[in-house]
């Protein structure tokens, strides 16, 4: 074809200018990436700086004026957050809610995922398709009947209500992710264990669980962040009956809405609520990414 000839001609013509063009393109690339990074970091950095500024200057000058000397940073806002408005208590509530609501669905899902992966039974595939379908059911459709149910049981306003609800809501994703991971383990391992006389309980605890540790880690991070960051579920099942048990997100949402003199508290409170997610994110980022990618792409 003539195309081959022309590219060869072009190559010989273009070659002298190529390095310069490539260098210019590299500069452009670095600029673009740096701009994106800055654009994404500025909002968070702005809030971080604001959270350390004194109450009076917060409403009269921008946060960027504080990063030039002289420095007037203070811890006063954080101290006030812990003293006031029950934010410290709300932080503890968030922990109370998030830890059991992370562990329970993990354990429940592990058994189901094993059954879906390594047991043969009629209707297995249909049932798993139901789980896949339930992945996207908006939890809004479940609020009213479950609120009714919890009221009948007398547990609205208690942590038990949100533990149960979060377990239900978290299960489809948990089963889906774990089943994908467990199902991709080598069949031969399970077969040879069975030949050696291992029953399903032994294979589950001795083989499946230890081999799925990365998947469990990814899932735990996910579910923890989901519950920690949740507003709607706790607002509905706890909110009206017992505001003392509300988590940090709900307390903060109230603070934003009723912005009397709370402006200076807001930045510090937001950072307090972001502290754990950010720690989880930076410490366990690899698992976090694997969870997202494994849950969404592999299938």
């Amino acid at each position, binding site marked *: 074809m003539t195309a081959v000839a022309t590219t060869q001609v072009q190559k010989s013509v273009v070659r002298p200018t190529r390095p310069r063009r490539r260098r210019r393109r590299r500069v452009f*690339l670095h600029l673009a990436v740096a701009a994106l990074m800055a654009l994404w970091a500025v909002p968070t950095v702005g809030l971080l700086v604001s959270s350390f500024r004194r109450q009076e200057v917060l409403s009269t000058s921008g946060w960027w004026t504080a990063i030039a000397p002289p420095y007037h940073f203070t811890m006063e806002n954080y101290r006030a957050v812990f003293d006031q408005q029950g934010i410290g208590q709300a932080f503890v509530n968030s922990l109370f809610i998030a830890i059991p609501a992370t562990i329970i669905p993990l354990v429940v899902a592990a058994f189901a995922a094993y059954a879906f992966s390594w047991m043969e039974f009629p209707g297995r595939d249909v049932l798993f398709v139901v789980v896949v379908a339930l992945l996207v059911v908006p939890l809004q459709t479940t609020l*009213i009947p479950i609120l009714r149910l919890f009221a009948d049981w007398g547990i609205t306003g208690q942590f038990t209500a949100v533990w149960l609800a979060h377990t239900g809501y978290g299960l489809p994703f948990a089963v889906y992710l774990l089943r994908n991971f467990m199902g991709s383990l080598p069949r031969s391992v399970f077969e040879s264990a069975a030949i050696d006389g291992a029953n399903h309980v032994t294979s589950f605890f001795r083989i499946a669980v230890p081999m799925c540790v990365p998947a469990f880690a990814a899932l735990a991070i996910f579910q923890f962040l989901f519950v920690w960051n949740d507003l709607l579920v706790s607002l509905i099942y706890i909110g009206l009956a017992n505001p003392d048990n509300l988590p940090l997100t709900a307390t903060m949402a109230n603070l934003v809405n009723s912005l009397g003199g709370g402006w200076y508290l807001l930045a510090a409170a937001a950072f307090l609520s*972001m502290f754990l997610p950010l720690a989880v994110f930076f410490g366990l980022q690899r698992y976090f990414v694997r969870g997202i990618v494994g849950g969404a792409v592999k299938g």
Partner: protein
Amino acid sequence: MDPRLVTAIEVVVGVPAILVAYIWGTERLVTLLPHRWHTRIRPWLWLAPTAGFLGLFLIYPTIRTVLRSLQGKGLTPRFVGLANYRWFFTNETAYSALLNNVLWLVFLTVFTVGLGLLVAVLVDRVRYESWAKSIIFLPLAISMVAAGVIWKFMYDYKPAGVPQTGTVNAVIGTAGLGPVGWLQSPSLRLSTFAMIAIMIWMWTGFAMVIISAALKGIDPALIEAARIDGANEWQVFRKVTFPLLGPTLAVVSTTMVITSLKTFDIVYTLTNGNYDTDVIANLMYNEMFSVGDFGRASAVAVVLLVAIVPVMAFNVRRFRAQEELR
């Protein structure tokens, strides 16, 4: 000690212990049965806890909500047929909320997927890739309420003539524009777009991570072959990379469609639906707790569910196709 702490510890230790004991105990019982019953009964015993939770917290309430949407308000509601739906589709506020959700759906999906793709392709070529990804991915780890607070500071509005403390108004101020009350402007649905921008900031990282993983999964030989055939970078992207990313982009898009339909936290926190920013989920919340009409609230929830059904069907079909490849 706080009695709630005691309960929490009991639950954290007790529930897994009970579940393990349950599996262990039922296994003992199953082995007492004739052998051919083992494989028939065992799977159902292992699935029972999950089935119980899914049935009780997802399937049963969804059915109840559909039925409830056909009833009026009050504790002993009457059957009202489709009146709640008629209210929804003839009501000015509901129409406005629906329109906002459409805006959310279109702009959030297009921008997160587009930007995610752009960022994934760009950072793939630099050495500080993991740093860049971390920064863009970070907002996804925080709550929408915290993101709302962050952007409440960003969008802060002071009357003209006073120094602007909000970053956005200060920046456009240097170009002699504004100040704009980003979160208080119903005209052109500006406040809705301002909040969509927040969610784009949060979710671009999600799209980027998944697209980036798919990008790294593309066989380098294909790209190399295209280059040898004389394709330039743009042609390689357009004719090779992009088509190969197709399924991944579809997955990310469906997630974003669902996210945009379910939007609640940001709107509830920042405007509570004022300034023409209401969305379906917030409308439902207000029907529930401000108006107290569970019939209408249920109807709103069903509308949301129906909007998501096509996505559900798509997910199931994609899953089936993947299973055939296993």
